[in-house]
């Protein structure tokens, strides 16, 4: 569902259950959680609650169950702020089976218990959001990317949420219109292959990456990789503007902004396009084209694998590298700001930070319309931001892998079966489900 439909479909959520409310004063909680193996009630006799607080044993796969329920039944509820952002799915044998297989804790909910839950939601900073259409998910990733190199790919695979890989030919061929949600792999949209040419000179993986990028550029008739990536970035912006949901992490966030702002100026070093960066590039950047950032300054040294001062942590700049702290999720009003609330559903309010080539976003370079979803209190940077563009939205999360804080090249891949309750990965999966929501127009 594109955002225009998303925002256009008014009032259905929550009202459905409000109409059906009996007004009975129900008390007491639900059954103790089981892994889908609770005695099965007669079909249609109740619902299954997927708790997302500490009673949940596998938060990440719970998103897969919810996604599957949306896909099958066309109706699932996301109970924002209720027990860590729980899901309410129809009590069907297929969902119980899936939960049992995945090790996801579920609780049977009778109609009476449901009334009590809804009463709690009504009286607190909570809301019930109807998820009604499983988003079609695309991941922008090179065909040669290893499967365990991108947190979103790993999260989707682990949660069993289907996705399609797209790359430059598909983007330029207009395929993005086929998808509701697009994730950007940690791509460098400045076309400089993360400026790793010196640090990792001679590394086979870097040579392969550079050659594949150059080959794609030639195949698509671009003079060089930076030129190709600028056009790809513009297409991605168009996708958002026309109603797409964009989620990006790590380098993709910062370099997408730079590539958009640098449409008419050379910001790539000579090793990437044969000519040095325009010495006056900073002044020539057109920030009106960018989605989230403004007034940033480029890193001019081609030997330093850093792009600009958008990133607060500067992990690859020895002179400016900042230590990792922890970031805190904002507590939004669920009934007034359900979109922001959806994006920050988590069973932990404070999450340890993690590095990426772009780890964070300096406050000074954010546009005033941006919404900060998570920040490190007192630090000059924020971690997680969101905003609108045209009929769509973009969401950026800094860092590479929430369960691999240092993320050094060559480190073994993250095995999510060892992190089934990862709060950081939950933020990624919130984004995947968020386009499934049908919701009232925002009030703020």
């Amino acid at each position, binding site marked *: 569902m594109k955002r225009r439909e998303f925002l256009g479909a008014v009032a259905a959520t929550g009202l459905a259950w409000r109409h059906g409310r009996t007004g009975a004063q129900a008390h007491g909680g639900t059954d103790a959680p089981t892994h889908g193996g609770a005695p099965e009630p007669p079909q249609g006799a109740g619902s299954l609650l997927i708790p997302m607080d500490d009673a949940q044993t596998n938060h990440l796969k719970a998103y897969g169950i919810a996604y599957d329920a949306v896909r099958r039944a066309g109706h699932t509820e996301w109970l924002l702020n209720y027990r860590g952002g729980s899901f309410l799915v129809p009590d069907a044998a297929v969902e119980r089976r899936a939960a049992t*297989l*995945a090790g996801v804790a579920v609780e049977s909910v009778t109609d009476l218990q449901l009334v009590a839950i809804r009463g709690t939601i009504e009286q607190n900073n909570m809301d019930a959001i109807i998820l009604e259409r499983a988003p079609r998910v695309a991941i922008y990733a090179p065909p040669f990317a290893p499967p365990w190199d991108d947190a979103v790919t790993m999260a989707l*695979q682990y949660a069993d949420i289907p996705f399609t890989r797209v790359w430059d030919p598909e983007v330029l061929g207009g395929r993005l219109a086929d998808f509701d949600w697009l994730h950007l792999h940690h791509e460098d949209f400045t076309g400089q292959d993360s400026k790793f040419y010196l640090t990792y000179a001679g*590394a086979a993986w870097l040579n392969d990456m550079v050659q594949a990028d150059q080959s794609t550029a030639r195949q698509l008739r671009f003079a060089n990789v930076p030129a190709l990536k600028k056009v790809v970035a513009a297409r991605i912006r168009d996708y958002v503007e026309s109603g797409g949901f964009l989620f990006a992490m790590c380098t993709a966030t910062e370099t997408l902004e730079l590539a958009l702002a640098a449409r008419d100026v050379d910001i790539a070093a000579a090793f990437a396009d044969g000519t040095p960066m325009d010495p006056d590039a900073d002044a020539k950047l057109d920030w009106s084209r960018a989605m989230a950032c403004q007034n940033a300054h480029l890193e001019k040294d081609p030997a330093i694998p850093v792009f600009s001062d958008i990133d607060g942590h500067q992990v690859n700049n*020895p002179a*400016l590298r900042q230590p990792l702290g922890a970031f805190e999720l904002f507590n939004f009003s669920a009934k007034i700001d359900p979109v922001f609330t959806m994006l920050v559903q988590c069973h932990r309010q404070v999450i340890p930070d993690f590095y990426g080539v772009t780890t964070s976003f300096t406050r000074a370079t954010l546009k005033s319309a941006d919404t900060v979803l998570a920040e490190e209190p007192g630090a000059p940077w924020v971690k997680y931001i969101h905003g609108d563009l045209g009929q769509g939205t973009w969401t950026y999360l800094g860092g590479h892998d929430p369960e691999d804080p240092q993320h050094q*090249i060559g480190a073994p891949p*993250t095995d999510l*079966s060892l992190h089934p309750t990862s709060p950081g990965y939950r933020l990624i999966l919130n984004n995947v489900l968020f386009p499934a929501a049908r919701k009232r127009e925002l009030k703020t």
Partner: protein
Amino acid sequence: MGRIARGALSLLALLLPAPALGQAALARAMDMEQQGLWGLAAASYAAALRQEPGNAIALLGLERVGEQAGWRDSVVAYAARAIGDDSTNTTARAVEVRGLRATGRDSLAAAALARWVAVEPRSPMPYREWAQLDLAAGRAGDARDVVALARERLRSPTVLAPEMARVEIASGHWTRVAVEWRAGVTGEPQYAEAAAFSLRPAPVAERDGVLGILMAPGAGTTAARRLAADLLLGWNEPGRAWELLRAELPPAGPLRVAALRTFADRARTLDGPGAQHAAAEAYEMLVGLEPPAAAVGTRIESARSYADAGEAAAAQRVLRPLVADPLADAATRSSAIAAMIELQVRAGDPAAAAQLLDANAAALAGTQREVLGRSIALGWLRRGDLARAAAAIDRDSSLRAFEIRGWVAVYRGQLAEGGQALRSAGAMGGDPGAAAARVATVTLLGAVGRDTLPALGAALLLAERGDSLAASRALVPIARQVGGDGEPALLSWAARFAGAGGDAADAEALWREITERFPTSSQSPAAELALARALASRGDLQGARDRLEAMILAHPESALVPEARRELDRVRGMVP
């Protein structure tokens, strides 16, 4: 404190010389600091400094407690006074710079540093202090500039190598870190441990580069190569590490002993025959360097390391001189004999071990004889000689001997008697592996439900003797004959033995039979899991997935379900 007491103390202060008063205040300050009484500690350190302005211990103490006590500004004043008394007081200079930086007075700190440099123009200390402050503040770039300045002014391209190494770590350039540490340990070997500590986290992909720097020929080769050996050991390459260290050992003396001891003790803690072999050789080399009393333990450790490396002959070679030495003291001989007997048992020669025990019984304490007797009994069990196993412990009344008698009874087919003895030995005592074997066997015997069954005893003895495949084949007809709950239990043992013996096809067939014929048995979840793994290992991922899903759904409460879910994630490609 009363007026008289105060008066007495004042009088004492007049009578005592200033340094003595300072020492008393210092002792009081350290006592207060230990109790966490920061304010009182600070006041006492200050009192000590008033008596001895240049006292480094008092200055550093005041610096330590100053922040908690709210005395941070005063620290700088006391440091300045000490410098006034002695402009070359390095501690005071460093405290002054740190104090000014800590209170945010960076320009004053820079001025203090400049004064320090002016007084000691050839010393790296001021630069080191400043670089370390920058590093602590996360300003790696500034620290790099400081080091560069120091190198230029002091005309030494390697000075402040440890600080520069920290700068390079911050930038993730591991080969540059290695370059710095190579210079660091060459000039100042005491940095070796710090260097190893800082280089050990280098990612796998960077390690060859690091080693290449450390092992390159040129100045500082020896210290750097020893560092490389240390790193190789930490990176679990004990063979390469030992080869390198052996070539670069310090000349005879305490340093050589320390290097060998450190290496051997670390290698001993690593798994694998390579590490144990390296440890054994290092210990053996150490034997000749240590005083005779200490060398006994080292020799035994060397033998044990050789044995753990699977080199029984070498182990016995190392021990033999001790056992055969008529002049060795009693304790030395008994330790050596005990170690030798254990080695012979492990080498599969209980007869030789028994002979050695008999010949030296008088040299061993009673409990030691029993312990060794039990080792020999277990050795006879592994050889299948039940009579000798029983005889080896006939006068031993310990719980462990009771367990061995239980095994003897089981292998003789006296299942009720054997099961009872194993139960009596308890579910938890002794080696965890042995305890698990006891519990599993008792469970099996319970499922079989026979008092005697010689064929089963004989089959289990085959496994004890290491012939898993023969045990598996022998168990299958017994399972068919026993029937009931015993049948799936025996079949699952047969399947495990088949797998352990390398007959994957037989194992798979047996697991499959259990899942199909005994789907509600307690063996079924384990059988489903094992079958799924077997299918996955030969590429039938869909078949494995079906099995795992069936297992999880049919046995959701089984303790094996988390394992099955992880396996399911793997076969579905959801995790690496």
